Every structure is written in C-alpha cells, then in structure tokens.
C-alpha cells in the first residue's frame, strides 16, 4: 500500500447479467467497432517516415577536415570509452608525402567497429578530442553473415564528394560538454594523475 493505488481483489459471486456475459460481449463489440472510425496509428513506412531526432545515434562516420584530410589521430580514446569494446584500431605515423591525407602526425591505418558489438551509446563521439567520429542518423544495413558487420575505414570514413552533415550534433553546448573535465573520457592522462593525487614519476 505504498502508492495507495493498489486495489484489493474481491472474488464475489457474479450477478446474473455478469454471468450471462452477453452484455459484456456487446460492450466489447461496441468498443472494437468504434475503432473502425479512428485514425490509424501506423504509417506507410517506405513512403512515409517518422521524423528522426537530430541526435539520433546510428551508424558512425569518420569525418574529414575542410581540406579533405582525415581528422582521426588514432589516440584510442574512443576505444577506451567504448563500453562494448567494439572499436579496434592500428595507429601509424604519417609520412611527409601524406600530409594532405591525414590531419595529424599520427593516423589510424585500420579502424574497425564491430557493429554487432556496438550498442550505439555515443560515448566514442563524446570521447573524441579531435571531432573525428560522430554517430549519424543512418541505419546499419542488414546482411546475412556476421563478418560483414565489422565496418572498416572503407565504410566509416566519409567520402570527399559526399560529406556527412553532422552540424546538428556540434552545438555550442556539445562543444562545451566535451571540455568538461568531470567526465573521465574528457580527461587527458595528466589530468587523471592530478586528480588521483599521484605523481607522474611514481
């Protein structure tokens, strides 16, 4: 009786009209009949779609900068932040002739997300210090074998011709949030050590 909403069930003997069931059945029929004239609650899906939230968490994209170079520097913060451990990457050093391809001196040679492990929590997006990875409103296409769900850079990196628009996710509030050191994944290594009170030498 904490909420005072529970009702005590009383099993009393039913009255004659109740035992006949017919009045109750007619009431039920009346209710179902009234639904004939109600608006449908469903939509005709492929033609109509429901509005998608601007911060819908769907398939990831690895962004390029304005010059078309990949933003990811393979710092591994996203992989650390990922609670499902879906992200793996191999870092490599940029060669001098690759400056137009990669923005930072280090880049991800391979970057894989296992979409069957991914829970689309968006922590990778929050963790990323380089604004390189974003979740988008695109859905993961279904296939028949599990291997094809491991998405590599060929799928994740946006193409130069058709960049993926993520401006809706980059509001000032979001950018502010990303600097908040309260969150573990926003801290650098040095921040973490300062907080814990240990010295770097120890």
């Amino acid at each position, binding site marked *: 009786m904490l909420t005072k909403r529970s009702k005590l069930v009383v099993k009393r003997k039913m009255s004659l009209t109740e035992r006949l069931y017919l009045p109750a*059945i007619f009431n*039920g*029929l009346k*209710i*179902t*009949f009234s*639904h*004939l004239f*109600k*608006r*449908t*609650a*469903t939509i*005709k899906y492929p033609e109509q779609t429901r509005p998608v939230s601007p911060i819908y968490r769907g398939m990831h994209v690895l962004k390029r900068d304005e010059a078309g170079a990949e933003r990811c520097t393979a710092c591994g913060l996203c992989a650390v932040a990922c609670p499902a451990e879906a992200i793996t990457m191999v870092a490599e050093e940029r060669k001098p002739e690759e400056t137009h391809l990669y923005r930072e001196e280090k880049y991800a040679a391979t970057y894989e997300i296992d979409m069957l492990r991914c829970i689309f929590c968006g922590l990778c997006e929050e963790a990323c210090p380089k604004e390189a990875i974003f979740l988008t409103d695109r859905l993961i296409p279904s296939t028949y074998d599990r291997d094809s769900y491991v998405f590599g850079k060929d799928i994740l990196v946006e193409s130069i011709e058709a960049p993926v628009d993520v401006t809706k996710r980059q509001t000032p509030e979001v950018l502010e949030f990303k600097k908040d050191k309260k969150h573990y994944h926003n801290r650098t290594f040095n921040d973490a050590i300062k907080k814990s009170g240990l010295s770097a030498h120890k």
Partner: protein
Amino acid sequence: MELLVFKALLVLVVFLVSLGVAAYATYGERKIAAFLQDRVGPDRAGPFGLLQPIADGVKMFMKEEIIPSVSNKWLFILGPCIAMLTACMTGVVIPWGGELSIGESSFDLQIVDLNIGILYLLGVVSTGVYGIMIGGWASNNKYSLLGALRASGQMISYEIAMGLAIIGLVMTTGTLSLKEIVHLQDAGYANIVYQPIGFLIFFICAFAELNRAPFDMPECETELIGGYHTEYSSMKLGFYLFAEYINMFISSAVIATLYFGGYHFPFESMTGLEGNLLTLVQVLVFMGKVFFFMFFFMWVRWTIPRFRYDQLMHLGWKVLLPLALINIFATGIIMWLNGSLN
C-alpha cells in the same frame, strides 16, 4: 434438359462465387482486423490492396510442397481434400434468390430444394470434421494431433446444441426445406422474432463449428502453432484455409436463410419490382445479409479472447445444451397455447 443445363451452370456459379468470396474474405479479415486495431492492413497489391488475395493464391501455389517423411502420405493428402469437398457441398441447398426467367422458362436460384435441407446441412457439417481429424492424425505431429482431437471434441459437442436449436425452428416452421422456410418468413415475420434464443444458440455454435475465435482452439497459434495444419504447406494448407472461409460464407448464408428471411426483404411487395429485376435485388439483399454476418464473425474474432478448453466444454454441455432443450419445451408450450398444434 434445359433445367439440367441451368442447374449445372448454377452449380458452377455458386462454386466460383464461394471461392471468390472465400478469397476476398481473407482480404476482408485482414483489413477488418487492421481497422479494428487502428492499422492500415494490406495495401501494397493493387489499389487498397485489392489484388492481395490473388497474390496470396499465387504464393500458395508457388510454395514448396512438403509431405513429412513420417506422415501417412495418402491420409495426409486426403485431409484437405475432404475439408474442401464438404465446404463446397453445403452451398447446394441454400436458396440464393427467387425465380429467374430466361426466355419462356423460369428457374429457381437454388441448386436442389431437398425436403430435408436442414438435415443435409447438418450431415455435411458433421462429416466436415473428418478433414481436420484425418489431416491432424496423418501429420504424425503432437500439435496436429492435439488440434485434431480438440476439433473433433468441440464439433461433436456443439453439433448437439446446434441441432437442438434448429429443432425449435423446425417446430415453428413445420418444414425442413430451406426454400419453404424462406417463403414462410416472407409471409410472416423473420424467424428471429419467433426463435431469439434458438438463434443465439445457433450463432454461438456456428462459431464453434467454424473453429473461429473465440473457439479457435483446434488451430490456435499460441498453443498449438497452427494445430491440425501445422505440418501443411503450399496448396494443401491453402485448401484448409479456403475451406474455413467457404464454411464461414455458407454459415452466414444459412444464418441469413434460417433466421433473417433469406433473400426476402421487408416491404418487398411495396417496391413494385418484378421479374428478373426483383430477383437481382433479392440476390443482392441476400448477399448483403451474408456479408454482414461474415463481418460479424470477423468483428467478434478481434473482440473476444480465446476460451479455455474446459470453458468451451462447460459452455457447450452445461449452458447451451440445457438452454436448447428449454427452448424446445418453451416453443412447444407456446405453440400449444396458441393452438397451432392439433
């Protein structure tokens, strides 16, 4: 000879109409279910999904024919055949309309006017259960067998109450011929006025005989994964489903004929219609009544939840059967008081 040709044509027409109505009943069922549940229903094939039954039919034909290796092959094939045969046989005695005159001669829109029409209907319906039983047993599957057993127990139980409900009707009309029953209703009132309780019992029993919700235990998906037709695929499954919808069509026609004046409609003589035009209107009116009851069957299906099997038996044996007996006695007493018995 002329009569024979006409009757043969009528048989063909009734058969095709039954099949067509059954096909579109599947569409109607899905649409009505959808509307009652605030959905859209099938709308992909053709305008408003009107070609859906054709698409379903093609799908049924194209599906792989599977006969389980442990099944009894001949009986497995025989089951749906019997179901379909008995379903199609019942339409023979239904009077679809008045007289149709072609040239000099005029013909009844009824294939055969048996003087035991009602008994014929009951007889055919009672053999219809074999289609389900044989199919369920031959599948060699627990669920199918359970479905078959449930079906047979249920149909036997409700046939008795159904027959007794009809006896009340036969007492008031004094005939077993469906044609005469229709004519008597044209002269007086519709039989529902004389036999409201009989109608109620008959109607409830019709649900049970058709294995339709709320009495669809022989084929409930949730308990028996389809019941007696679990193992069936392709057109044999199609036969079972088709037979069910034909049965629904015919039962609606029987209810309209027995209790709601058949093809006659109120104030028929005042309309001043004559000849073939009147017959056409009669057929349309009859079809209207039939479609209303088919709608009612579907409407109830999406309103009342399924009974438990013991509740079903309780209703059949302890409620409907005594009620039908009381109805017979009451009818007899009222007729005796009225002096319509000599």
